């Protein structure tokens, strides 16, 4: 994969898309070989990586900012400004004092994306970011991702909603039974 490109990972259910993202993120070990990100083993490149999973990866008992604040401290970010910025970018109000357990599915999804981007990662791994999100919000997220790509960040995204990304992504990668079986430019994409 080339740095600075926007890739869409496709394939039938069980093809290994989420597993591949988890391996790149360092959550699963590959059975052989290694994963290098910007020249470093993936486990040494955690500062440069943002990961959004199928599950929201958020604490229900904390509100949005409290969740982001906790995770930000793990990345060594001690101020709230980048967190508020990330929340605004995904269309959430940083002042919303509501626990995540009371969020709608779409709001959780957006907060989960904010959690993945607050530290401005150079590589963004996204697993179904448009699921449970209304069409307008999905478009907003797609535009946000396009903006991140134009800033030179690399994005690898799993989705079944290809239509949203037809004009935004550079390339698709097709997986089947854990193997890369096809790749090519997205129709009407940037490539």
């Amino acid at each position, binding site marked *: 994969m080339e740095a600075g490109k926007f890739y869409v990972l496709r394939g039938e259910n069980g093809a290994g898309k989420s597993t591949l993202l988890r391996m790149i993120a360092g959550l699963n070990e590959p059975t052989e070989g290694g994963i290098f990100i910007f020249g470093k083993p993936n486990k040494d490149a955690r500062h440069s990586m943002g990961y959004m999973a199928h*599950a929201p*990866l958020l604490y229900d008992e*904390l509100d949005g900012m409290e969740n982001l604040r906790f995770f930000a401290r793990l*990345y060594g970010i001690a101020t709230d400004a980048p967190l508020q910025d990330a929340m605004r970018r995904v269309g959430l109000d940083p002042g919303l004092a509501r626990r995540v357990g009371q969020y709608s599915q779409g709001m959780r999804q957006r907060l989960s994306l904010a959690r993945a981007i607050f530290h401005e990662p150079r590589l963004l791994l996204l697993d179904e970011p448009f699921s449970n999100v209304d069409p307008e919000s999905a478009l907003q997220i797609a535009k946000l991702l396009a903006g991140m790509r134009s800033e030179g960040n690399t994005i690898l995204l799993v989705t079944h909603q290809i239509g949203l990304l037809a004009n935004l992504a550079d390339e698709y990668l097709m997986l089947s039974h854990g193997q890369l079986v096809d790749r090519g430019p997205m129709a009407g994409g940037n490539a």
Partner: protein
Amino acid sequence: MTQPTQMSITRLTWINVAKDLRLEWRSRDVFNSMMFFALVVVVVFSFAFERDDSRPVMGGLIWIAFLFSTTMALNQSWARELRNGVLDAYRVSPAPAEALFLGKVLGNFILIVLLECLMAPLFVVFYNLNSVGPLWQLVVIALLGTWALVVNGTFFAAMSIRTRNRELMLPLLLLPISVPAVITMVTATTQVLTGEGAPDVQMKFLAGFCVIFTTACFLLFETVLNAE
């Protein structure tokens, strides 16, 4: 890119402790279940023993209440990390796994010590209990014993979180390895309560147990956390 600052393991540990205590304060699911279990033990056994004859068995009774309450707390504290897959968010972050472990140990330790402080007056009331030996020794035994249970329990609870029957797995893993510590805690507590013998050797044993298992669990935790 947002410029990160280097956070020490101590700072990250306290960030984890603060988060765990905040979650518990808001849900109270761990503390309420621990308190309920401990109360049931105190009340039920108070019918079984005469108030003035119970002193020789109190060491065992006190630690049964705290041992099983601890097991409940430990299961819950990790179950919380599995909900919504939050543990994965920690694992992809650059924060060291050891800070998570120490944070969990300290968070659980604080909760269980708080439980012990609340339950102590009830043991006095229900069993007419007062210490014949020096009280400070009881405090030291309680702190060392609780740490021994919590440090092993947090480690084994982490080991069992991905198993299907984790509530069952934890006691099966924790209790056998904690037997030497539990026996020592019970005998030492009984010695202080009855005033028969000095628990110096037991306290040294507990301190050694805590040091050895804290070190071993600390060093092995990252492997356990990332085990598939």
